[in-house]
């Protein structure tokens, strides 16, 4: 759990005992394969109420930094061992966007502690615990000019026996994440697993950072990306199959990673990807699947609708954030103007009251800004993530269609071959006949395989979709509750400010 590091040693050993007692993850991680690890996987997904909450909680950027500082103090000896920093030229640490983060660290800390004790209790009760937490922190600019890139520290804290140690961190760059995603996608998408999509590339944003502009917008960009990467990793490891994948483990643990060149936007691999995408789109339109299973049809429709709704919602939340920011700007301007008015007013009490009003408005402006940030980080990013996730889900359905198509194609081919064989029966060409018979046998095998594949993917998709839906609802609920809490806080602050102002206004005489 995220908090084992802070706890006194005895408790963590308790944890270990529990884990060993129900060691569901076989030690040699390499034995995991793409087949359905059905039972254990399902257990994990259903019993992880508490930890999920905690890990979701850590989406909050403030908590992240609070933790980051904690790790440094407690783990220094360990870190030296694990981190073998490769040759890194001029590392220029970038100041995190403190205006966004710092004011709330105090608050977040307290909440963390109360939550942590709550979660521990839950875990002990739950028994089988999903115990991994990943944090992405410390964005650092490495290199200079157009070849510069941002390196992020990926810290994993876990008590799963799958990993060699409890806590470790590595440095990764954005293309590493993309590389991980493309590997996972090529391995799992076509058999029906919903692989979480990686955050998008942004050429404009990165160029600004590379060029070295250290201003508000590039800091925001880095922060946005950092939190998106964190969410991406958390989602990936929450998937029980993906968690055991060797690529994932390598990504989290090994200090050196071969650079994923094929993720570059302008590479040949990138172009190939684009061509493939276009071909897929065309194919989708031409495949007419004979849907025998109503469940799939209904689910597809459901996801289409959801997609449309989420996109709309996302758009309006984004413009809400924009407007709130505008409101805060205008409020700040008004505050200044009111202060000037107070200055020129020659009735002292009124003048004082006006200056107070100006102060109140300034504080309210700050409040608006904070609220806007909350809107954004909690709500809007969540929605964006889900829009992309749903695209991945749709992709999985498409793969199922392709599998079906393959099966049908091989069936048709088999049919043709059989007909050809039947015809050959009447001619006297024994070796051709034999050849035909061999081909038929081969094809029959293929057809059977195709059918098995299709059923397999259908089964997997069913499981995946139900897991996805459950998680989605939970995700939304948690985020919305957090959002509401932030709203409540804003309101309380507003009340305080106006209450302070009221006596001043009354004192004018």
């Amino acid at each position: 759990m995220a908090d084992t590091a802070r706890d006194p040693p005895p408790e963590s050993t308790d944890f270990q005992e529990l884990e060993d007692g129900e060691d569901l993850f076989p030690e040699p991680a390499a034995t995991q394969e793409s087949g359905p690890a059905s039972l254990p996987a399902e257990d994990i997904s259903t019993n992880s109420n508490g930890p999920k909450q905690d890990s979701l909680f850590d989406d909050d950027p403030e908590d992240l930094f609070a933790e980051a500082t904690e790790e440094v103090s407690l783990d220094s000896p360990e870190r030296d061992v694990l981190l073998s920093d490769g040759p890194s030229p001029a590392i220029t640490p970038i100041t995190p966007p403190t205006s966004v983060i710092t004011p709330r660290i105090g608050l977040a800390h307290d909440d963390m502690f109360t939550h942590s004790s709550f979660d521990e209790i839950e875990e002990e009760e739950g028994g089988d615990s999903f115990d991994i937490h990943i944090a992405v922190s410390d964005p650092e600019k490495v290199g200079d000019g157009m070849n510069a890139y941002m390196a992020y520290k990926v810290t994993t804290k876990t008590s799963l026996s799958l990993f060699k140690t409890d806590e470790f961190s590595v440095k990764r760059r954005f293309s590493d994440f993309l590389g991980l995603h493309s590997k996972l996608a090529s391995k799992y998408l076509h058999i029906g697993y919903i692989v979480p999509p990686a955050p998008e590339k942004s050429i404009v944003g990165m160029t600004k950072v590379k060029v070295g502009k250290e201003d508000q917008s590039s800091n925001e960009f880095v922060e946005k990306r950092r939190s998106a990467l964190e969410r991406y990793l958390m989602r990936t490891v929450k998937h029980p199959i993906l968690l055991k994948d060797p690529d994932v483990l390598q990504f989290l643990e090994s200090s050196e990673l071969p650079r994923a060149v094929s993720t570059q936007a302008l590479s040949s691999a990138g172009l190939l990807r684009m061509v493939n995408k276009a071909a897929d789109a065309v194919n989708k339109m031409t495949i007419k699947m004979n849907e025998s299973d109503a469940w799939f049809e209904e689910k597809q429709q459901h996801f289409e609708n959801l997609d449309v709704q989420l996109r709309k919602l996302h758009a309006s939340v984004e413009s809400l954030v924009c407007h709130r920011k505008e409101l805060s700007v205008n409020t700040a301007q008004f505050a200044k103007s009111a202060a000037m008015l107070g200055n020129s007013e020659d009735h002292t009490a009124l003048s004082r009251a006006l200056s107070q009003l100006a102060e109140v408005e300034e504080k309210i402006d700050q409040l608006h800004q904070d609220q806007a940030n909350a809107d954004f980080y909690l709500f809007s990013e969540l929605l964006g993530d889900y829009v992309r996730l749903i695209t991945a889900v749709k992709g999985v359905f498409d793969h199922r269609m392709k599998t079906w198509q393959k099966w049908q194609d091989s069936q048709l081919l088999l049919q043709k071959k059989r007909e050809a064989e039947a015809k050959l029966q009447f001619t006297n060409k024994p070796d051709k006949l034999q050849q035909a018979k061999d081909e038929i046998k081969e094809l029959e095998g293929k057809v059977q395989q195709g059918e098995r594949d299709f059923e397999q993917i259908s089964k997997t998709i069913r499981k995946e979709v139900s897991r996805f839906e459950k998680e989605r609802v939970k995700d939304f609920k948690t985020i919305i509750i957090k959002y509401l809490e932030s709203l409540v806080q804003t309101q309380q602050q507003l009340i305080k400010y106006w209450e302070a102002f009221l006596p001043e206004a009354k004192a004018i005489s």
Partner: protein
Amino acid sequence: MCACVCHPTDATLQVDISDALSERDKVKFTVHTKSTLPNFKQNEFSVVRQHEEFIWLHDSFVENEDYAGYIIPPAPPRPDFDASREKLQKLGEGEGSMTKEEFTKMKQELEAEYLAIFKKTVAMHEVFLCRVAAHPVLRKDLNFHVFLEYNQDLSVRGKNKKEKLEDFFKNVVKSADGVLVAGVKDVDDFFEHEKTFLLEYHNRVKDASAKSDRMIRSHKSKNQLHFRTETQQVSCSPDRKFFLKVSELFEKTRKIEARVAADEDLKLADLLKYYLRESQAAKDLLYRRSRSLVDYENANKALDKARAKNRDVLQAETSQQLCCHKFEKISESAKQELIDFKTRRVAAFRKNLVELAELELKHAKVKGLVTVRSR
């Protein structure tokens, strides 16, 4: 409802707007008077007046030389329903593209907005009349009595293009003149101080008023968005009960926020706008006084010249005496007016700021409760 603080219990003359009717492109105000003064035929009566007739009354005050020494209550702004009407029209056109629910909701909102604008314009016209009725000299004005009593149309047409152009040029001349006149240093400390103060104050009030307008406008547009967000929330999930509650919450907070914006508008923005106009009127008064001072000094110079040449001395003397008298009269009443202005201003600000704070507090508390309850 007055942004100013009229004398409420003066039984000799009480004026208010008891009713108002909004038609196609004009608003008809029912001006109701209660008076114990002997000038009027009855003790209580009502007439119907339109905006142009208010303007006529105001202008007659401004043009009256006898009132040069008073702060003329600023004229009420023209009722402007164009923006609101446009929105209603757009809503009507877009009726097909939204659900019935959305349509009725938006219609209600726009109608409420229209009503709010309407109430505001009524209030501003009423304030103007109150101020005139409260002023010891202006209340006796004959035009004012005609305005209150004459129950037929005053046949005051709005200024046509030519007259508007004349007005424009008059204003240009006046402001140029104003600059010249402002350069003349005043002998009297009180007035000198007032002049600098008013100039600065006026500019700042203008600025504050503009900024507060913008702030409130963005507040309102933010509310619009909240509205859209919540309607989309509902349709997007299997866990309908939870999301239904959330969207209801958003709806409630949005309504409250709308009221907050409206209150801010009323208490803060209107207050600032009104004092913008009043401070302009006070500036006009100072201008008139300075103008008469300059005239006085010119008359003095003319008198000296006439005495030197020993020609038209009597004429110059009378003219000089007139100017002197006028200047002194203006100065005297101006002093009182400006002091009154300050008192009124302070009281009005106090009242409105207190009310603003109380309302904001109330709304914030309600919002907080609503949010907490739906957790």
